[in-house]
């Protein structure tokens, strides 16, 4: 438990400290970031499908932009 709290406090201090290093992009300057072509997953239904197609044919899995379930891998 003590280790967990120390880890959490350390993480919090690091994240708070990073605030000074972060770029200053004002909310009104973020219009482009909201555009569909800037999204990591423009259409979730399409990304989920494509990730599933590769998932069942490859040994690697995880850390994709979508999540799914099941197998369909025979």
């Amino acid at each position, binding site marked *: 438990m003590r280790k967990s709290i120390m880890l959490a406090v350390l993480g*919090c201090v690091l994240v708070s400290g990073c605030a000074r290093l972060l770029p200053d992009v004002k909310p009104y300057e973020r219009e*482009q*970031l909201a555009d569909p072509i800037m*999204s990591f997953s423009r*259409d979730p239904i399409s990304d989920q*499908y494509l990730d599933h197609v590769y998932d069942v044919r490859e040994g690697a899995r995880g850390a994709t932009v979508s999540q799914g379930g099941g197998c369909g*891998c025979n």
Partner: protein
Amino acid sequence: MVVTEQAVGRLIRRRYIRTIHQAGVLFILFAGVPAARAVTLPEDRADLMYHYYDGGGVTVSGPAMLVRKSVGDNVSVSGRYYVDTISSASVDVVTTASPYRDKREELSVGVDLLHGNSLASVSMISSKERDYQADTLGLNVTHDLFGGLTTLDFGFSNGKDTVGKVNETFQMDINRYNFRLGLTQVLSRSLLVGISFEDIAEDGYLNNPYRYARFGNSIMSSVPYPETYPGARDSQAVALRAVQGFSTASRPLGMSARMDYRYYRDTWDVRANTLRFTLQRYFSDRWIGEARYRYYQQSAASFYSDYFTEVMTYMARDKELSTFHSHSLGVRFSWMLSKQQLPFFNKASLNFAHDYVYFDYQDFTDIRTGQPYSFGANILQLYISGWY
């Protein structure tokens, strides 16, 4: 050996509980960091898709539907229905069994709750085939930091699969634990980067009950032999992604370039690298075109072999666990429809995507020809999306 595998499973579960506990404490403290902009609920939208895959003697097609709707200001609910109709005469099937047809249905429901700068999501996914049932319960939390410039998310899911065999009483279980951690960072008004990590621990029956290893002095003289897999698998994947926007002659943001890289490793000694490049461009206010390339490479599992000359503790010949690489090239076109053209929606898009992927196996022999196996596949998607 069974006792050892159960012990490994228990160890993984204990480690997960400890990791989740630590992550939970970390998140509660992060939640106290002030932010000037709150996260928002996902958009209300509906998608209807037809998908088609054809390659290596396997055809998979079917519909998929995704609907999301907000309820009040702080709650959003979603539902997804997905069908795979499978017709398989793959190299594994034709060399050890008869071609078959099957159907997989997947249903998922989810609820998103918005609270301050945090979005908590709970989802349930259920997938069913004649010989396979998978149920997954997931929890995900997204939190904005530093005025919305940084987004932190973490998630946990627990899945339970039941593996069976058609026309047999055979039935075995798999337990799966996924732990995800991600961070997305705004670096400029047109540059976004992200990093994500996922650990997946499984224990139970991880074999494919229909597949066989090969036993003999050469691949061509070998005979089928039952596969045996370890009873546990623990994997880690780390992905880095970045998207940069560019202006064009007609638009301040007319094009974007994206790059994704993922490194994967697991306790079966599979190592994999995935690299993807995507270019998206507005050809007009109505048309978006996309070109993409994906490269994938993996090393074989430690207990994989094209054929075995002696009986080993673990034996596998699944080509998904062999040494191979693949190249994939694809395009996607989206046509945006305006509100005037639509009766119920604020906006909508009609989309078509085609990917061609080529798999090249280094140590998996096609026993029909005696040559290393390779095949190409076409992946088609046609879908309509509507926002309301």
